[in-house]
């Protein structure tokens, strides 16, 4: 059984820094794990895992619009939220959906929506709203092949850059990317936690295959699941500044209807939330949005380092493509090829430090992805003086997955 390591990355320093590594428990036989405090082994679909993850993280509001391949998330929450006194509403479109969850969040809800490419495109303005107003919410995008309507039931990783830059006006992004059904559950909880903590819209990107795949899953013990809720102000209403510079820019957020009659606008605003055109205040607001991410890189970035200790060639891949890569690593290792995998669980902010370390440690990096070359741009950005020739892309955009053999063939080409 390969040893999995989780690495959380430091705030991007100017000099070479050691990447912190946090060991995670190596999974044992299923039966043994089930007997411990873990919950029952179940067969679960990726979309189902997202829905239950949302509920377990305290999500009590869903507004959405049906779209393949994400619809199961809405269907499950339509059934489950009323049972828990939460709200489910099917809106008239995806624009309304993102706006409704932002509105609900300002009234105090933990709110989530789920969609796919076409809907994600429609939501971009609302995502920008949540970012500039610092309104916690989560958007799940189960990616499908595009562009446009594309192939609704086929996998694609085409929205990596859109998740980063899709909304106009230059704002930072937190985007998580699971590679299994279990991780879909875990990262949904994490997405909600991060949205509450950082007061922003967090995006969870799923691959169509993961959204629709069923896997045996041992869900972690709910009693051990850490759930984060936004900090509420404890000052009198007339002292309250909802965009104060408190605690590394993570300032408390009141809810509508609780006595703090504050103003929220998606115009550039001051610390009280009132619109401003003053250069100093505008610069301060932009710095605040940026710093709350950059000051907390260590908390935000998660990566998995798979058989990288002695690797000569590394694969950088996320989601379903990382699963193919792990299979390729296993085959390569059996043939004596020292191949490893670096997998980001957080794709934005990008794990710069771990990638720099990888580029130093290995002779070549292969970047397989189900798009026409999106991750590879980031890897090449980090090569600096090293030759870009050592970074090799592998793409597939025909609606099918990259297979372990596709990756292995590329490995052998660069050897």
């Amino acid at each position, binding site marked *: 059984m390969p040893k999995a390591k989780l690495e959380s990355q430091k705030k991007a320093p100017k000099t070479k820094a050691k990447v912190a590594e946090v060991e995670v428990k190596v999974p044992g036989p299923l039966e043994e794990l*089930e007997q411990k405090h873990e919950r029952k082994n179940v067969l679960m679909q990726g979309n189902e895992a997202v829905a239950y993850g949302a509920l377990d993280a305290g999500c009590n509001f869903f507004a959405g619009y049906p779209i393949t391949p994400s619809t199961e998330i809405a269907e499950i929450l339509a059934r489950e939220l009323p049972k828990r006194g939460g709200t489910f509403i099917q809106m008239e479109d995806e624009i309304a959906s993102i706006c409704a969850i932002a509105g609900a969040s300002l009234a105090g809800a933990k709110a989530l929506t789920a969609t796919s490419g076409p809907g994600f495109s429609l939501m971009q303005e609302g995502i920008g709203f949540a970012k500039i107003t610092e309104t916690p919410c989560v958007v799940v995008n189960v990616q499908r092949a595009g562009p446009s309507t594309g192939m609704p*039931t086929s996998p694609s990783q085409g929205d990596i850059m859109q998740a980063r830059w899709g909304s106009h006006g230059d704002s930072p992004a937190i985007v998580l990317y699971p590679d299994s059904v279990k991780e879909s559950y875990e990262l949904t909880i994490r997405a909600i936690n991060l949205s509450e903590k950082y007061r922003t819209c967090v995006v969870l990107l799923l691959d169509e*295959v993961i959204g*629709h795949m069923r*896997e045996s899953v041992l869900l972690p013990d709910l009693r051990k699941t850490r759930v984060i809720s936004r900090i509420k102000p404890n000052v009198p209403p007339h002292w309250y500044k909802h965009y104060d510079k408190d605690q590394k820019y993570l300032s408390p957020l009141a809810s509508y209807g609780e006595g703090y009659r504050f103003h929220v606008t998606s115009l550039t605003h001051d610390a009280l939330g009132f619109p401003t055109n003053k250069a100093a205040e505008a610069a301060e607001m932009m710095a605040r949005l940026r710093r709350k991410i950059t000051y907390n890189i260590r908390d935000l970035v998660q990566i998995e380092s798979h058989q990288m200790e002695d690797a000569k060639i590394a694969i950088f891949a996320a989601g379903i493509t990382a*699963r193919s890569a792990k*299979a390729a690593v296993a085959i390569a290792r059996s043939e004596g090829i020292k191949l490893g995998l670096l997998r980001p669980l957080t794709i934005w902010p990008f794990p710069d430090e771990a990638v720099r370390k990888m580029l130093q440690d290995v002779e070549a990096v292969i970047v397989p992805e189900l798009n026409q070359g999106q991750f590879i741009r980031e890897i090449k950005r980090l090569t600096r003086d090293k030759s870009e020739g050592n970074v090799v892309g592998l793409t597939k955009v025909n609606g099918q997955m990259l297979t372990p053999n596709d990756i292995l063939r590329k490995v052998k080409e660069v050897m």
Partner: protein
Amino acid sequence: MKNYEIRLSGSGGQGLILASIILAGAAVIDKRHVTQTQSYGPESRGGSSRADVIISDREIYFPEAMNFNCLLALTQEACDKYLFDLREKGILIVDTTHVKNIALAADNTYELPFTDIAIERLGSAISTNILALGFLVRITKVVSEKSLEISLKQNVKPAFVDLNLKALQIGYDLADQYTGGNQK
């Protein structure tokens, strides 16, 4: 045991995805690692449909079956399309109601008119999927039959449990007859 890869293939509406979920659910009850994936067009009826189940004792990385240990083909199109990805000594199960030509002689081929049998014995083709699944499980022994029955009860509506348990049993019996009881 290494990964055991099964592909269930046919056309939309034949219940292959449900059969694959029942099979994967049985593997979970058996405490095995399992992945179940599916591929289908936008239609829920008519178009081609396939579902893959991979069962293993270790973590499964790539979830699509590429080199099947067992292929179930309920249509000619599916048989033609996937037969060449059956591994050496892999098991081929075809529904001869719809599959008239097999392009390649596989070592372990089982040919039965599952759809006709379902119509004759159960009154409709609706349970062909479960009947074929029962046959497949008794032949391959990839999951325990006890777990299969529990999973079936978990995954079909209560009103259809009895019918489907009957279909499963017919599948088992057909397997015994086919092999002369050697598989038991």
